[in-house]
């Protein structure tokens, strides 16, 4: 037992161990993103579905009607995953900053913009999530979800903030997805180009779908 604990401690304090944890929590968050998106897409079911309730209202009330312990376990689980992801990433970043001495003239050969701005885009997404939770999860009525979202996105400031945040998420996910595969050791020279395409495609599809909601609201397609 002792060995397991010692190794676990060494693992979570090592550079590779922490990277792997960031990668795995990132992968969880990616899965959550897909689930969340699937739910959100019900908004395109329109205002009225069965009777006088919209699809998304069904979905929202459905989520809320889960037993409280289950709902809160999922929520706390997600929070824990997100916290591990964020805290470890920040610690690694801090170490990386200290490991460097800076050039007078910086040059870059291959590192992409998205790969170099992971912490920035990540923090931006984090701020957005806090706002997003405050705005829609804790101050919303699940039974009246559709209208609530509509109202929110009819304010241009809110929509623009949302769109910018999702674009940051897109950059984050673009590098993040293929980075997960590299960190957990599933990448090789042959498949890396494929991973890059998949990451781009994933980021564009998922984030494009998210962005489609405020865009449709503002264009008046959803009303």
């Amino acid at each position, binding site marked *: 037992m002792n060995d397991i604990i010692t190794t676990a401690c060494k693992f979570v304090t090592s550079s*590779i161990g922490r*990277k792997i944890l960031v990668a795995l929590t990132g992968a969880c968050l990616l899965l959550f993103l897909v689930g969340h998106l699937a739910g959100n897409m019900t908004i395109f079911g329109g205002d009225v579905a069965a009777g006088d309730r919209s699809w998304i209202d069904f979905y929202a009330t459905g989520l809320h009607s889960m037993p409280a312990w289950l709902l809160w376990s999922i929520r706390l689980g997600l929070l824990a995953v997100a916290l591990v992801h964020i805290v470890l990433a920040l610690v690694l970043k801090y170490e*990386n900053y200290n490991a*460097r001495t800076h050039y007078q*003239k910086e040059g870059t050969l291959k590192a992409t913009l998205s790969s*170099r701005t992971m912490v920035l885009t990540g923090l931006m997404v984090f701020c957005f999530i806090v706002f997003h939770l405050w705005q829609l999860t804790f101050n919303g009525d699940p039974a009246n979800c559709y209208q609530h979202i509509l109202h929110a996105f009819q304010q241009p400031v809110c929509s623009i903030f949302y769109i910018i945040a999702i674009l940051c998420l897109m950059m984050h996910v673009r590098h993040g997805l293929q980075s997960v595969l590299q960190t957990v050791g599933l990448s090789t020279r042959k498949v890396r180009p494929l991973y890059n395409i998949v990451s781009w495609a994933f980021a564009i599809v998922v984030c494009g779908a998210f962005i489609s909601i405020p865009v449709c609201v503002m264009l008046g397609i959803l009303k």
Partner: protein
Amino acid sequence: MANLNLTLKVWRQENAQAQGRIETYKAKNIPDEASFLEMLDIVNEELVHEGKEPIHFDHDCREGICGMCSLTINGVPHGGKKVTTCQLHMRQFKDGDTIWIEPFRAAAFPLLRDLVVDRTALDKIIAAGGFVDVRTGAAPNANNMPVRKKTADAAFDAAACIGCGACVASCKNSAAMLFTSAKAAHLNLLPQGQPEKNKRVLAMVRQMDALGFGNCTNLYECEAACPKGISVDNIAKLNRDYMIACAAEAVGVFA
């Protein structure tokens, strides 16, 4: 053959404690067939004639194999042409260019003088586990252990690392993952390296962490800067091997 006139912005620093600064030099009439280091030789010869101290830089074999030459040229180690600085030729530059020359920078590479840094941290990673522990004289006949050609080739690709440290110097995080993973992969791929594989991986990674290198964030800048084309596949392999080694250590598969 043409001659070039260049402006050099060179990092000068008398010793580890001194305050460093960029100084500007003119490099006049540099033959474009000269190597980058020969260009610096010419500049230094002139400086000495003027009674000034020459620019100190590390170099030895000048044929791209010893790994001693360093220099970050315009922000990129070895100038980013897939060769070492000693094999970088002046025909890659244009007349009138301004060239920034700085040392390989990383906290784990303390500066000694001007462009000379101390890279013994890399040796320490090897000392921790980058070897096969065989005693001289005890080896069996070389052909007793066939090695698949593909495996031998892959091991060679990893073993081609010259230990120059460009991967660390180019990394935005000053991580030594490409270096460490290449050496680990070279030995982990071969059948000779199997008995110590887990032990090696753990020892090398832990030593690397202890030496104050940064953490890899998969920017692949190292691969692009590497003069020997070492692949980041090795990093993926090291991550994989490290997970397995940790699991093995935890459950006591090897003691």
